[in-house]
Every structure is written in C-alpha cells, then in structure tokens.
C-alpha cells in the first residue's frame, strides 16, 4: 500500500511540479498541498489522469487553525498549575483575538477516492485571506462537492467561487455566525424559548456559562511516535 502511494507521490511531483507545495505520506495516506489558484487544475488532473483516476470525491471539510497547538493547562514547567486558563474569553473581543492571528487560518481538506486503482488521496488547500476565505468550487468537477461545500460555508464561512447555490445547510433559518470557527463559543450566542407574554418564540443571549470539564493538554513527553513518518 505504502509503496503504491510513493509511486503515486513521485508521479504527481513529476507531473504537477510547481503546483504542489508539499506532499507527505503519513500513516499510509498521501496528502498534497496546493494553493487556491491551482486547486481547480490539480483537481481536474487528479480526476482525469490515467494513473490517478480519482473519480469520486468522498469528503470536503473545512478546518480553522486559529487555536492550533494551544492548551488550557501548562504541563511544560515544573510542578502543576491547577487553574484552567482559557485562551479565548469569548467576551466580545473575540474579533480582536482572531485579527491577531498570523498565518493562514482556514484550510479546505478534500478526500478523494479512486475506485479504478483502489487508492485515496487528501488534497489540502489553505485560504489566503483570513477575513474573507475563498477557494474555487469543485462542484463542476465532482458534483458531490455541492453539499459538502455548502456545509463548509455554513460552518466556517469559507466561500466557494463558482458554486451554483451557496446557501446555509445545517444551521437554522436566519442563523448568524459560523459555528465551527474556533472563536465561536460551544454554547453559542443565543438561546431560544417560548415567551408566555409575547406568545411567540423569542431569541435572547445565552444564559449559561461555558465550563471546561477536562482541560486541553498537550503532553510533550510523547509516548507515541509522531504521526508523520517522513519521506523515507
């Protein structure tokens, strides 16, 4: 399996030289990274090339890298701290926190499957603009991209250029915000309830407070080998 992936990897690196920013084989999976400008041409190639034949798009998923690698409980120093410190307070200044973020925040991850060759590939594409993330829509290449892109738009606010019908899909009618963004609180912003006096359903700000039951911890004394096996 791994050998075949290496063959595919070197094939792609040869043919798509300059378009592939990075290609890694880890855990028996091949990931290639492309820029938003090259996404369409690379996708088309992956679908139509005889050695690739990725005729099926399995999944599109958005990722928000805003708090990647951040923890709530420091374990590197000596002794133990008992307090859970939350990096994001979510008290209205979340936009400031988001603006401070350097690097590319949003990524679109595409999983492809080739039934012809029985192989998979992962295509990763980081959006250039953090405030206005956009990539080209893959809907014309694989029709199944339609709803997956709508989902990524709904959850992360990633815009897909050329999508025929980019509406919200999973959230409520009239929902505000993109819930899977890391600066969107888990408990949400609004509560909904039926109001006896007004005789209708009303929205109001959340009345509960978010709690951390188990703090997020990154153990540096890693017991396991890193997931990335490198290029050997």
């Amino acid at each position, binding site marked *: 399996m791994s050998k075949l992936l290496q063959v595919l990897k070197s094939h792609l690196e040869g043919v798509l030289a300059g378009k592939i920013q990075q290609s890694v084989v880890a855990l028996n999976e091949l990931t290639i990274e492309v820029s938003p400008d090259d996404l369409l041409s690379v996708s088309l190639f992956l679908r139509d090339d005889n050695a690739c034949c990725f*005729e099926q798009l399995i999944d599109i998923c958005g990722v928000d890298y805003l708090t990647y690698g951040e923890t709530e409980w420091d374990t590197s120093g000596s002794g133990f701290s008992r307090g859970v410190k939350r990096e994001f307070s979510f008290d209205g200044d979340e936009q400031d926190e988001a603006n401070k973020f350097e690097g590319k925040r949003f990524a679109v991850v595409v999983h492809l499957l080739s039934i012809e060759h029985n192989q998979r590939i992962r295509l990763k594409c980081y959006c250039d603009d953090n405030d206005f993330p956009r990539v080209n829509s893959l809907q014309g290449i694989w029709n199944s991209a339609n709803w997956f892109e709508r989902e990524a738009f709904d959850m992360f606010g990633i815009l897909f250029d050329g999508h025929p019908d980019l509406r919200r899909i999973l959230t409520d009618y009239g929902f505000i915000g993109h819930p*899977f963004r890391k600066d969107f609180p888990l408990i949400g912003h609004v509560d909904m309830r039926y109001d006896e006096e007004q005789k209708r359903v009303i929205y109001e700000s959340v009345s509960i407070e978010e709690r951390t039951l188990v703090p997020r911890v990154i*153990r540096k004394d890693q017991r396991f080998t890193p*997931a990335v096996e490198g290029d050997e």
Partner: protein
Amino acid sequence: MSEIKNFTLNFGPAHPAAHGVLRLVLEMDGEVIQRADPHIGLLHRGTEKLAESKPYNQSIGYMDRLDYVSMMCNEHGYVLALEKMLGIEAPVRAQYIRTMFDEITRILNHLLWIGAHALDVGAMTMFLYAFREREDLMDVYEAVSGARLHATYYRPGGVYRDLPDTMPLHETSRWTDDAEVKRLNKNRGGSVLDFIEDFTNRFPTYVDEYETLLTDNRIWKQRLVDIGIVSPERALQLGLTGAMLRGSGIEWDLRKKQPYAMYDQVDFDIPVGTNGDSYDRYLVRIEEMRQSNNIIKQCVDWLRKNPGSVMHEDHKITQPPREKMKGDMEALIHHFKLATEGYCLPEGEAYAAIEHPKGEFGCYIVSDGANKPYRLKVRAPGFAHMSAMDELTKGHMLADVVTIIGTMDIVFGEVDR
C-alpha cells in the same frame, strides 16, 4: 380553461415517510416533480464541535447517536481513526468481535430499512416481521454492553469487555406471563455466542419470508422497478457509496477492497445490481443480509475456539482491569489519568473509513497533540445520498419521492450530525 402553473409543496419535516426530520420543498408540475430542495439540519447537534471539547474516549458515545440504527459501525469508524493515529492494533479476538458486531449491526440496519421502506410503500406486515428480529439482535447488544441501542462498546485498542458467558433471561412480570417467558427464554439457556448462533440458524428462513412477501409482489415491483435509476457514472459523480453504488453495478465494498478488522479472514460475496433502480438496491440489501449472516457464523466459530484478551495491553491508552486497580498502584494511577485527562494523540491527521451499512462512513481527525481532537470530521454516507435527492426525484411522481427516500436509507442522525 385556467392557466396551469407549477406549485410548491412542502414535504415534512413531520411527515411519517420523511424518515425523521427531512423538509423537502418540491416544485411540482401537476404531480410530477420539477425540482426537489431538501432542507436538512433540523437535527443538527454539532457532534463535531462537541467532540473538540472532550477527551477522545468521551466522544465514542456520540458516534452511536449519529446513525442511530447502526450504532457500532459508527463507533468502529471513529475507533479505527484513533487507532491509526495511536499506531496500535486491537487484539485479534477483539477484531473478530468487532467484525461480528459490525455484521449484526448491518442486519439491524437493513431490517429497519426494509421495515420502514416497505411501510412507506404500503406493506405493513414487513415492519412487524423486521422488528421481531431486531428485538433478538438488540438483546445481544444489551448482553454485551448493557444498552440496547447506544452501546459505546468499542474502544481504541479493543472492545469494552469480552462476550459474557450467559445470556440474560426474561422474567415474569405484569406484562409477560410464565408461558410467554418460557417461550422467550427458549434460546437463551447458553452463552451469548450460543444465542447468536441460534439466531444465524433461524435468520435465513426469515429472509426467505421477507422475500416471499416482497420480491415477486406485484405492488412492490410496481412501486420500485425503474424508480430512482442511477447510472454508474452518475453514482460516482454524486458521491454515492455502499448499496447505492453497488445497486448501479459497481463492485465496490471497503470490506473487500480496503479490509479492516478481520474482513480479509472471512468469506463473503459482494452483491451488485444491474439497472441501478430501487428494486436492484432492494435485492442488493437483501443479499447483504444473507452474507452478513454467513460472516457472523464464521466469527462465532472462530470466537468459540480462540479465547483471549479483547483489549490492548498498553494502559497508557486503555483502562486497566478493575480487579488490578484494587491492588496495584500503577494501575490506579493509569485509571486516574485516563479518567481525568485521557490520552494524547500524536500530532498529525488521519482518515479512516469503514463499510457502514449505508455506505462509506469515515472519520477525519486532525490532532495538535492534545487530549482532545483539534478537528473531527465525520463523513456520513447519508449526507452525500441526500444531496443526490434532487437528481433522483426529477421527473418522478410525488409518490415516488417516498420510495426514493426509502431506497436511499436515510437516517437523519448522520445526515445532520
């Protein structure tokens, strides 16, 4: 004569044939569908976001609640992704147990599918028959995990516990008298494996019964044949997987092509259709039930002969046994750390997919090295199937929409997540 216009019809979200909370906005020309716009998300619970706030093991229970008629298969997909990242493998016995329960789950799922599908199309009896058999299988779920539906039985590194030696018995109560209890307990004298084996011996005749009722049934055929035809090319384009893909004649089954658990050790066939219509998909799923039954039999045979551990031995990841905790300090520390903090996954990302009864169910995990996932994406087969709704229903009559929802085997727990 007055002018005839297209009109819009709301189907659901509380329609009994909508299989949950589907709201379909149908643009109709007379009784013919011009456009179907499914509105989903009424059951959206944000499973993926919730998982980001919990240690890995605490999310296993959420997986049951995705596709709530094939619980253990969902767990399997999630657990496989974790194991891939951790670089561990479950003991062989645990993998056989998983294989067996995946197939039990497949039968459970297909039974519900055939019951609901037939009920939608007009055959009431099927539903009662299917639920009779589901009862037995849910008892098996209960015997191993304590829960009839949301089992939370699989763990990274194995399964929660070995198969029990006794099958729980029914007791006399206000609702069941002695004669009824005696009848119910007839097969339950032995171990869980005995009960499962007894079921596998009975089940083929049950499937024959279903087929007698449906396969050559004139009404059933009138409602299913040539409804919702998908060509192989379109099936690939639309991202259809599982029986939806096999019904169109593409021989693709992850259990065979990218084997996980013990599927490379058991013998089974992949049924495929030829026309890609609802009737072919019905035949495919019926045959899948028979194949699953065979796989369960093979697993039972193996499990009888090969006792052993069902959990990975590395207690940095898996809980040590309860008895050990009472006397061993190290085990107690492991228990404490796992219960309060969980384990950390190495940094990286992984995608693991299984052949779910409905299609390809996959989990994509991004980890930054923490004890909680940085991002968990659940690839639910039903979501892709649902998105093909518009294309499948176009040009069909309103009554066929019900058939097509049934043939897609939609469950909203996984579509909305």
